[in-house]
């Protein structure tokens, strides 16, 4: 007796309930197996099998309960087909299930009824089901219109019903759809994938990647399989490998990467109880520890885990791209160029279309020669060509066994610097070098940051990707309008900028502060590349201080002299400032899309424009407005006395270097101008005063620079003879030869305000010496004193004299770092004078017991010193003089102290 309707429904509910709980139970078992070490493939196979069982069982049940007519139809004219990932038997724990109910017209009314019964059941189980009811003809027609449907049916798999019907479908589908218009299909799929990249990440090296859809995710593998199926009708990777279409090595890498991703995906699904495919930071930490990665001193477990992730996905992506490319038939121009003889260039290389390669006969020769390898990439850069991907792989395999020492030659370095200099695709070329593992032969540390993640919420890319991207961003900035673009185009030695960008974050992944580690890395790189002292200093500074400008611009007040001057002093030169600006902007831009905002740019530009006059000491057009403004202020100061007219003031101000105008109060400028107006040829005006605020005496010397040679040194001599300590000095030589020097000095003889006679006496002595009425040497010997009562440190800091000939077009710059002693400035300036140089500007500063003095000098004809030998003599002489002087002081002190104790 047939059960009545109500009990039947109840019965169905019961079996459905059972099936749902069976599925839940099965998922739990699988999760357990996964935790115990089962592979991703096993989990997917088991789940597919289980779901197959449910669906096939349901189909049979429905058939059994249907009328006789429907049973015949169900067995002969209908079948159930698995599509897409389910068709491939690749069901992750919470994947969607895509099934199709295929039927012939002969099935009549039975088809929709049967399909409804089966599909409803699946919904009740809680699957996300994609379903369709189609005839074979529907299939071919839909496939022509819809790319997704076309693709999903390529992977159709028979589940239940009429096998003959399925075979017919399969045959017709492959004949009429899959094998047709393959090129267009592949193009369309590539386009679709490109759009996906835009949405899910343009790079493999995302910090929180989507295991399916991001670059290098499972979708890239599907791309390869679809293209292979369309072009070669090969259904699986195994097929492709067996038929020799996929190389053995690629096959192995792909299956390894596939398993790696499958397993992670299974964990992600189970972890979220849903189809979660984003490998978030939290999941990374969980999985890294599940996989047994241990934190090491310099690398977290999670970072090691992600490095493995990136290695697999990068490999998968590259193989996929190469394979899909091969599946496309060649466009006409490429077919043509294939028959044209490839153009040989430079003896070893061959250009075919846009592709640069090395002919088979010459490969060993090129691979074995570091220099030729570098020239290959240099050629790709300079001619805008792509290097053949197979060749890149071959280089990679070959380089594995080659020591980086082989690349440490001047020739190799020269070519590398040419690549770094550009123009053209500098970043693109470096990226290819990184792919071929060539970059790490030149910068060995680069190997350690391959796929190294930065475990914070701020960065979006891994360290290597970020570094390469930063170079690309710097290149992009150079093409932009606006001040940063302008500055970018002005930069000399772009190779140093690009190299600094490559190196700036390589210190990451170690215990110590990454800027400090980066400093050592930069020093090492500079030594490897054979940089001179100047180049080394610039590179090391840029890497070491790559955060300085961002910190200063975003967190400090650029209108505060206490902020601006130390920053300017650290940067020191316009060239370094420009490089640091571009480096900072490019570094920020390479953190992620949209991170470098106009807002941040304007703060950086503001700091740049404020600093530039400080470091250049030369006039820029930017100063003209400021000059007018300043003239007004100075006129205001002069108003009550001799009202100079505005035109005169402006022309007077125009004579001063900008450095002076920026750093001097209008009131002081007014005082200086008053003196300048009084100044007669052959005269010197000296004024001494006490500055309460600073607790120091201030002397201003105004004269003509042709009064006597070595003005600065003579003044310093007088100060030394008087026992005065120079704290700070500003040496200004105006364009018309008027000298305006100011000295801040402390007077150890007087605590507090010195008597007026002291000030006037010193001033008078300076005038006498400058006018040649008194010799400074005589003063010195007469005024000779014991070394000051100041405590001297027992050990001396090494004296350092550096020559900078790159920064300024007009001056040679001498930097002096030494222990501070009374009279030292005289020794230095005297040495400079003896060397026949004239000082045009100087900045004297004392920090504790150390001086850091900067002198802008020329020869007597007013030209920069060019000859390297001469520069070295200058450097060595000054250093020698300083050391001799300091040693004498120590000796003298020892004599005094031993004398007093005996």
């Amino acid at each position, binding site marked *: 007796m047939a059960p009545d309707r109500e009990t039947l429904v109840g019965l169905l509910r019961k079996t459905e309930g059972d099936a749902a709980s069976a599925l839940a139970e099965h998922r739990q078992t699988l999760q357990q197996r996964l935790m115990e070490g089962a592979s991703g493939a096993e989990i997917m196979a088991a789940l597919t099998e289980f779901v197959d069982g449910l669906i096939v069982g349901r189909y049979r049940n429905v058939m059994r309960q249907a009328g006789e007519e429907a049973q015949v139809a169900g067995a002969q004219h209908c079948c159930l087909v698995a599509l897409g990932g389910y068709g491939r038997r690749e069901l992750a724990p919470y994947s969607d299930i895509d099934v199709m109910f295929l039927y012939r017209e002969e099935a009549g009314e039975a088809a929709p009824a049967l399909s409804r019964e089966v599909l409803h059941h699946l919904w009740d189980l809680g699957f996300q089901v994609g379903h369709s009811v189609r005839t074979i003809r529907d299939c071919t027609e839909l496939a022509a219109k819809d790319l997704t449907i076309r693709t999903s049916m390529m992977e159709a798999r028979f589940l239940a019903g009429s096998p003959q019907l399925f075979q017919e479908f399969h045959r017709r589908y492959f004949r009429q759809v899959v094998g047709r218009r393959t090129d267009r299909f592949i193009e369309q799929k590539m386009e679709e994938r490109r759009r996906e990249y835009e949405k899910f990440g343009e790079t493999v090296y995302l910090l929180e990647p989507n295991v399916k859809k991001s670059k290098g995710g499972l979708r890239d593998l599907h791309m390869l399989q679809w293209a292979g199926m369309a072009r070669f009708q090969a259904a699986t990777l195994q097929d492709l490998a067996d038929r020799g279409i996929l190389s053995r090595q690629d096959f192995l890498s792909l299956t390894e990467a596939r398993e790696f991703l499958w397993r992670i995906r299974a964990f992600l699904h189970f972890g979220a109880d849903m189809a979660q495919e984003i490998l978030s930071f939290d999941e990374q930490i969980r999985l890294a520890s599940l996989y047994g990665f241990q934190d090491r001193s310099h690398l977290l477990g999670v970072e090691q885990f992600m490095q493995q992730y990136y290695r697999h996905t990068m490999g998968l992506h590259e193989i996929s791209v190469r394979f899909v490319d091969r599946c496309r038939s060649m466009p006409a121009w490429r077919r043509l160029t294939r028959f044209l003889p490839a153009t040989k260039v430079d003896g070893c290389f061959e250009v075919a279309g846009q592709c640069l390669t090395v002919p088979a006969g010459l490969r060993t020769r090129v691979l074995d020669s570091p220099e030729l390898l570098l020239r290959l990439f240099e050629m790709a850069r300079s001619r805008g060509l792509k290097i053949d991907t197979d060749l890149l792989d071959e280089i990679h395999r070959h380089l594995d066994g080659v020591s980086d020492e082989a690349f440490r030659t001047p020739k190799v370095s020269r070519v590398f610097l040419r690549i770094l200099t550009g123009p053209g695709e500098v970043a693109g070329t470096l990226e290819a070098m990184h792919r071929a593992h060539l970059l790490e032969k030149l910068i060995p540390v680069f190997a350690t940051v391959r796929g190294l993640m930065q475990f914070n919420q701020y960065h979006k890319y891994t360290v290597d990707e970020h570094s390469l991207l930063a170079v690309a961003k710097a290149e992009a900035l150079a093409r932009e309008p*606006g*001040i940063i673009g*302008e*500055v970018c185009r002005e930069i000399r030695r772009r190779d140093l900028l690009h190299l600094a960008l490559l190196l700036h974050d390589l210190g990451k992944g170690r215990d110590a502060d990454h800027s400090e580690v980066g400093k050592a890395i930069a020093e090492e790189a500079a030594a490897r590349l054979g940089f001179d002292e100047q180049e080394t200093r610039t590179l090391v500074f840029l890497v070491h201080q790559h955060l300085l400008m961002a910190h200063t611009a975003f967190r400090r*007040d650029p209108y505060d002299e206490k902020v601006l001057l130390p920053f300017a002093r650290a940067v020191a030169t316009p060239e370094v400032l420009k490089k640091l600006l571009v480096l900072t902007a490019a570094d920020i831009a390479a953190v992620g899309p949209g991170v470098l905002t106009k807002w*941040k740019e304007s703060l950086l530009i503001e700091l740049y424009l404020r600093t530039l006059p400080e470091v250049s000491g030369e006039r820029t*057009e*930017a100063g*003209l*407005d400021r000059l007018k403004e300043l003239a007004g202020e100075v006129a205001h100061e002069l108003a009550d006395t001799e009202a100079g007219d505005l035109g005169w003031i402006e022309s007077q101000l125009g004579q001063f270097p900008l450095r002076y105008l920026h750093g001097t109060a209008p009131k002081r400028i007014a005082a200086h101008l008053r003196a300048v107006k009084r100044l007669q040829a052959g005269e010197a005006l000296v004024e001494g005063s006490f500055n309460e605020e600073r607790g120091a005496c201030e002397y201003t010397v105004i004269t003509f620079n042709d009064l006597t040679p070595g003005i600065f040194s003579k003044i310093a001599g007088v100060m030394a003879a008087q026992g005065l300590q120079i704290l700070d000095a500003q040496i200004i030589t105006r364009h018309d030869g008027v000298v305006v020097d100011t000295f801040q000095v402390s007077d150890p003889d007087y605590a507090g305000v010195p008597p007026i006679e002291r000030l006037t006496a010193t001033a008078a002595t300076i005038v006498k010496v400058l006018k040649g009425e008194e010799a400074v040497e005589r003063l010195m010997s007469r005024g000779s004193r014991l070394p000051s009562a100041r405590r001297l440190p027992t050990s001396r800091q090494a004296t350092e004299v550096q020559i900078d000939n790159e920064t300024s077009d007009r001056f040679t710059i001498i930097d002096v770092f030494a222990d501070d002693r009374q009279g030292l400035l005289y020794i230095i300036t005297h040495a400079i004078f003896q060397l026949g140089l004239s000082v045009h500007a100087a900045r004297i500063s004392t920090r504790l017991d150390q001086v850091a003095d900067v002198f802008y000098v020329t020869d007597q004809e007013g030209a920069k010193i060019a000859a390297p030998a001469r520069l070295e003599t200058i450097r060595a002489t000054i250093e020698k003089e300083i050391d001799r002087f300091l040693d004498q002081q120590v000796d003298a002190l020892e004599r005094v102290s031993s004398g007093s104790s005996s």
Partner: protein
Amino acid sequence: MKLIEAIIKPFKLDEVKDALLEIGVQGMTVTEVKGFGRQKGHKETYRGTEYTIEFVPKVKVEVAVADSLVPRVLETITRSAKTGSIGDGKIFVRDLSAAVRIRTGETGETAL
């Protein structure tokens, strides 16, 4: 309740934030903004090309506080954001009719 909106110089953010936390402000919203007040924009000339900087970069800090805290917040921001030079910014105060903490559904001052 009041919503206090302060437009300040970017480099003053840390100082203002610390000072506000010290007087018991629980949270704040910070936005990078651009604009101008009486200070107006200015022109920058670089290598002969003039660049108009119409809008000056500033930071906007928003804090929602109970009425009783308003005077202290105003005083604190004024003190900590001040440099004394032009362009130090402004503070706006508006009435706040309601507040809800999304997680718990609490409303009014308890949601602040």
